[in-house]
């Protein structure tokens, strides 16, 4: 398994844990993403993954009647399998921002999005908000050059100024428009 796939596996497992332990009544809680509930965040994550799988011809069918946990685990298992399949991993996806191999997209935009939304689900469902520190450091470094392309309606909000001496996770959350001390204010 590549380093990227291993990192994805760790981050994905963190998201799965938050989804698994989310009490049923908390799925309707408002999330840090404007206008989205916790369930909307989870659906977004599933859709982002599926869009990449569709692009490389590796989509899976899921039943909308199934639980979020069930659909998420099927999707992330398929996604990881695609990352570990040399032929699928090398497939190219062309979008408005150029051509990217699936494995690069999986290890960058998809992974970083998953990381942010792990925190979103955790914070509104009163679960552990600690993220994978290595993944956070890399995400912050790699997302900075994309700052001008990741903000706007349906994307991340404006950067928040982090407090002095903020650790890397707080810096990361502020960069993606989260206010770590009052998450529901966004």
């Amino acid at each position, binding site marked *: 398994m590549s380093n990227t796939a291993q990192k994805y596996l760790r981050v994905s497992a963190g998201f799965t844990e938050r989804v698994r332990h989310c009490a049923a009544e908390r799925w309707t809680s408002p999330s840090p993403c404007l206008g989205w509930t916790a369930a909307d965040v989870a659906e977004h994550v599933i859709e982002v993954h599926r869009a990449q799988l569709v692009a490389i011809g590796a989509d899976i069918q899921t039943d909308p009647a199934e639980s979020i946990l069930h659909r998420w685990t099927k999707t992330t298992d398929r996604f990881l399998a695609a990352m570990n399949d*040399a032929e699928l991993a*090398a497939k190219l996806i062309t979008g408005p*921002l*150029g051509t990217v*191999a699936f494995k690069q*997209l999986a290890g960058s935009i998809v992974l970083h999005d998953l990381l942010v939304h792990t925190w979103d689900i955790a914070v509104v469902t009163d679960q552990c908000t600690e993220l994978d520190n290595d993944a956070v450091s890399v995400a912050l470094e790699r997302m900075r*050059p*994309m700052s*001008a*392309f990741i903000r706007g309606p349906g994307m991340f909000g404006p950067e928040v100024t982090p407090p002095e001496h903020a650790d890397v996770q707080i810096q990361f959350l502020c960069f993606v428009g989260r206010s770590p001390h009052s998450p529901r204010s966004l």
Partner: protein
Amino acid sequence: MPTDATPNHMKSFLTYAAAFEVAYESDDWKVIDDLLTDNISWVVEGVDEPIGGVFFRRESVISAMRSSCNAFDRRFDVRVPAATETPVVIPGGVYFPFTVTYQHPGLPDTSLRGLEWDFFVDGKLALHREIILNADEVLEFVRVHDDQLRPRKP
């Protein structure tokens, strides 16, 4: 065994950047024709046309590049572009902050500062986005020294 066809966006960028400089020096913009996609988008923010602006499709973009250089760059004797940080590969392309320093006899140097993103499809430039950070300062320099600079080319 599948071959690794991961696009080399840095190589595409360096090819494009070198060709741009050749086109600028020769004023023969055909040299970059093959390096742009048919549907390229060209976005230069922070300064109005003809220096900046938003343009679509190859013919319009090449025309905009030429107009921008004629309206601004060619008014100076020397133009020195430089990346102020090592360009980094990002998903789909390359990002770097830059300066372009302009020199003209009898005048102090002046520099445009900005950020640039270039995204590639099949090795061709598909989206160029540039944010000019200090246009007001540099346009004021041009206004003050207008009569000492070369006349604006049509």
